[in-house]
């Protein structure tokens, strides 16, 4: 038989447990990416060239090399320098770094779109650089780029199977193990594909909701006139 429902029920609990690992890797990786991206974007905009130039170089370097190589590097090469990380940690750091550098470009676009007059008003009011970023610039820079950040969240989610390369027991790795035990790959791989499809669609719908909400509140902050 091409498709065995009994086998599907048998492997579903293991796959569901593994899906939690996938979601965990996604959320942790994206939290790192979103934070690191903002820091990198602000550093890249610095007027001090010994901060901005190396940051730009770092971002370009990370974006121009495959994430799989970065995962391998952190997991297999870092121990040579005495940094031994569990597979999950190494994977989350690699995904966070890689997508953080992409997110930094998104943030940079958002930050650069805040009108110069906002910076000047902040200077005229003598606000410190920290308060200017926290209260004036970032609240205006981020809402317009939420959709772009959301796209990277979905992209990062779909890249988590790469962590199977360093034996993180996420969905893909679990499916491979199940398949190698029973010599049936159709069901586990199909279920994993279906899971990614459903979760991606859910995430995309959620991002659209957030986007619509942001558009409404940006166009008319404070509600009805």
């Amino acid at each position: 038989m091409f498709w065995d429902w009994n086998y599907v029920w048998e492997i579903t609990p293991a796959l569901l447990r593994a899906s939690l690992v996938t979601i965990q890797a996604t959320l942790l990786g994206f939290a790192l990416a979103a934070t690191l991206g903002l820091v990198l974007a602000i550093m890249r905009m610095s007027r001090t060239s010994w901060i901005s130039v190396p940051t730009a170089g770092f971002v370009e370097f990370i974006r121009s090399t495959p994430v799989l190589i970065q995962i391998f590097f952190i997991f297999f090469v870092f121990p040579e320098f005495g940094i031994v990380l569990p597979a999950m940690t190494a994977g989350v750091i690699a995904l966070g770094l890689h997508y953080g550098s992409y997110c930094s470009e998104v943030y940079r676009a958002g930050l650069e779109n805040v009108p110069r007059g906002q910076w000047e008003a902040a200077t005229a009011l003598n606000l410190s650089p920290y308060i200017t970023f926290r209260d004036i610039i970032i609240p205006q820079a981020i809402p317009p780029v939420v959709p772009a950040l959301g796209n990277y969240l979905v992209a990062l989610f779909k890249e988590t199977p790469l962590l199977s390369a360093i034996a993180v027991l996420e969905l893909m790795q679990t499916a491979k193990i199940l398949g190698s035990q029973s010599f049936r790959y159709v069901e586990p791989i199909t279920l994993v594909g279906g899971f990614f499809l459903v979760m991606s669609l859910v995430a995309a719908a959620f991002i659209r909701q957030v986007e619509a909400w942001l558009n409404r509140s940006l166009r008319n902050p404070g509600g009805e006139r």
Partner: protein
Amino acid sequence: MTTPMVKFENVTKRYGALTVLDSLNLEIAPDEKVAIIGPSGSGKTTVLRMLMTLERINDGIIYVDGEPLTHMPKNGRLVPADERYLRRVRGKIGMVFQHFNLFPHMSALRNCMEAPIHVLGLSRQEAEQRAAELLDMVGLSDKKHQYPSQLSGGQQQRVAIARALAMRPKVMLFDEVTSALDPELVGEVLNVIRKLGKEHNLTMLMVTHQMGFAKEFADRVCFFYGGQIVESGRPEEIFSAPKEERTRQFLSAVLEAS
């Protein structure tokens, strides 16, 4: 003689090869109201922007309230001011911009509270009370919970004036504050400035195209042309009997247009 509130000493500003201000010397007394007029590109807005430290100067020194603004004393010499020094002295100056530059994600009240809380260290209650008083003074006590996008241009500019005043500056700079407004909204903003002039001991420096207002409000009018003050004096002198040919040409062109 009292110490001038603002003093430009041989101040030069260049953008690349273009000299915008050429060795400017200007003294403004405490409480004096000075109107700066002149054709666009004459460097008049640059004067305000340098005073607000939005532009660095290339040469000379600016003093505010007897203290250097662009420079700081160090080992008995004056060296270009660093950010920390600027943050201390710049608090004496407030600025209102042509395009308001209100923070769009904050209510009118919050716009006027942000800097008093974070820069002056006021408590929320104190800052809110002061902001409410100032919004009341500019005639917007019923609009304090509105956001900038819900206000007319004239109302936004009045919030911007209240926001600058909340920092208790000694010098207020007005950069073409009515130029972006519909004609029917100009009056309400000018009325607020008039009231400020009467009720507060503020040194005011305004770049304006409202010749009627300059004539009535200012103690002194400075005519800028080509990065220099070509002529300055009491408004009645400048407007009725200008000595310089450039001033005459400019005034007749402006009066013809209006």
